[in-house]
């Protein structure tokens, strides 16, 4: 699903955010991308949905080299990826339903179908009484669930989440990760950037540890080395 070969990223003037990244994530895998603040987690995710361009190396997502992707190709890539952010990125003057439906409408789904899909997703995520609420009237956990519903509305094959529990209390954070696990059961590939070690221990999934822009540890590799 995701392959990175010797990927690097430099921010001006010459800050090395990522160095020599090799990473493979299989289709349907669930991966925690961990590390302290400034380790390069967000940058790595941004490279995967081409919000940033790599300085070197090659990035393959769903069999396509996205390293220099632009225009229509970039739009198509993003239609296959669901994105979730720490600050939710919800439009405050649109209802929960409109926020979710917007993502479907812009890629050509009819208004009626978009609203229907959004409604079903919000109900599935436990927000059936909140679909006409505006984001400022929702709790942090509810807002993040609306954001997750928006990420899922176009049936993505890959979900990238950048610190999705960063603004939530521990109970709500657990609930959100459980939600991602439920999505993962549909064979959706999930990549979550987080520095919450407690969550990673509790949910026992593959963990890729980043430090100062380098991959320092990959639990999958450690496991395979231990078994061999």
């Amino acid at each position, binding site marked *: 699903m995701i392959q990175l070969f010797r990927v690097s990223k430099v921010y001006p003037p010459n800050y090395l955010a990522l160095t020599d990244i090799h990473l493979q994530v299989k289709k349907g895998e669930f991966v925690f991308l961990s590390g302290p603040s400034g380790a390069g987690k967000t940058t790595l995710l941004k490279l995967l949905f081409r919000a940033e361009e790599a300085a070197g190396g090659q990035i393959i997502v769903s069999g396509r080299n996205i390293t220099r992707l632009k225009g229509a190709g970039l739009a198509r890539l993003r*239609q296959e990826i669901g994105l979730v952010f720490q600050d939710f990125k919800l439009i405050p003057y649109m209802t929960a339903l409109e926020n979710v439906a917007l*993502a479907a409408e812009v890629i050509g789904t009819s208004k009626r179908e978009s609203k229907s899909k959004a409604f079903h997703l919000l109900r599935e995520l436990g927000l059936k009484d909140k679909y006409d609420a505006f984001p400022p009237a929702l709790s942090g956990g509810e807002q993040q669930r609306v954001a997750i519903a928006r990420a899922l509305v176009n049936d993505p094959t890959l979900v990238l989440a950048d610190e999705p529990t960063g603004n939530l209390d521990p109970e709500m954070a657990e609930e959100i990760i459980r939600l991602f696990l439920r999505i993962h059961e549909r064979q959706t590939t999930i990549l979550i950037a987080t520095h919450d070690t407690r969550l990673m221990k509790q949910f026992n999934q593959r963990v890729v540890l980043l430090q100062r822009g380098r991959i320092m540890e990959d639990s999958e590799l450690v496991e395979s080395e231990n078994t061999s």
Partner: protein
Amino acid sequence: MTLSQVAFVLRRVFGSLRDLFWTHFLTSGTMAMTLFVFGGFLLLQENLTRLFSGWSNQLQIFAYLEEGVKGSELQSIRKRLQSYPEVESIRYVSKKEAWENFRRDLGAQSSVLEGLEEGLLPSSLEITVKKPYRERSRVAELANRLKGEKGVGAVEYPEEWIEKLSMLLLAVQWAKWIFGGFLFMASLLIVGSTVKLAIMARQQEIEIMQLVGASQGMIKAPFVIEGMIQGMVGASFSILFLWLLLLVLSARLPSSLGIFLPTGRLHFLDLWHVVYLFSLGWMLGAAGTLFSLRRFLRT
């Protein structure tokens, strides 16, 4: 673009026109002023051209006869001149008639002529030139030939006025593009600022649209359509104002000027010019929007 996407774009356009009504209205007003000035020059040019052609239609050369030319000599001159290919008709104006005309033209001041001899003015031939020969250079050439005719003293034609009117027409054409050009640039900047405001107002939506994979066309199309609508609304207002201006001017037009206009009154822009102003309007709106999108839309 699918039908659903077209519907989505149109919903966004109408949403923006509603939410930023006054901003769009003021931009349309600015464009209306620009197109009004441009259209005003167009109107002036149109009517001057008609006035010019009206004058040209009445173009006559006055060949003053030498003292004592009359009878068979006069007939022979008329015959010779009538054989010129440029000459449409010839009318003889006797000394007496010339004097009467002069008196009539002086009107209230005609008393200054009292005591003067009636035969003071020379008799003349008023020569009407055929239409294809009513160009300045051809008329000048004909006048020169007439001067060489035996029995013809002096030759006059409204050369100065034709030249002045031609210069005025040229000046109007230039002024239209110079003033119009400046105002078009100003309008582009104002449309650009409106688009910048619209982008800022919808920054979050645009960001989300980009993140979920909306194409550049889907993101930019509503802004471009809004710009085109502003331009067309501006053009409609400018045409309305031009029409009102024409009504006011027509009411104050000196009746003496009306006789030179083919229909006896000022003429409004023809359909082609109206379409031209509309096209300029929407193109101005679209160009200002695209210029601003390139500057302010982060992709």
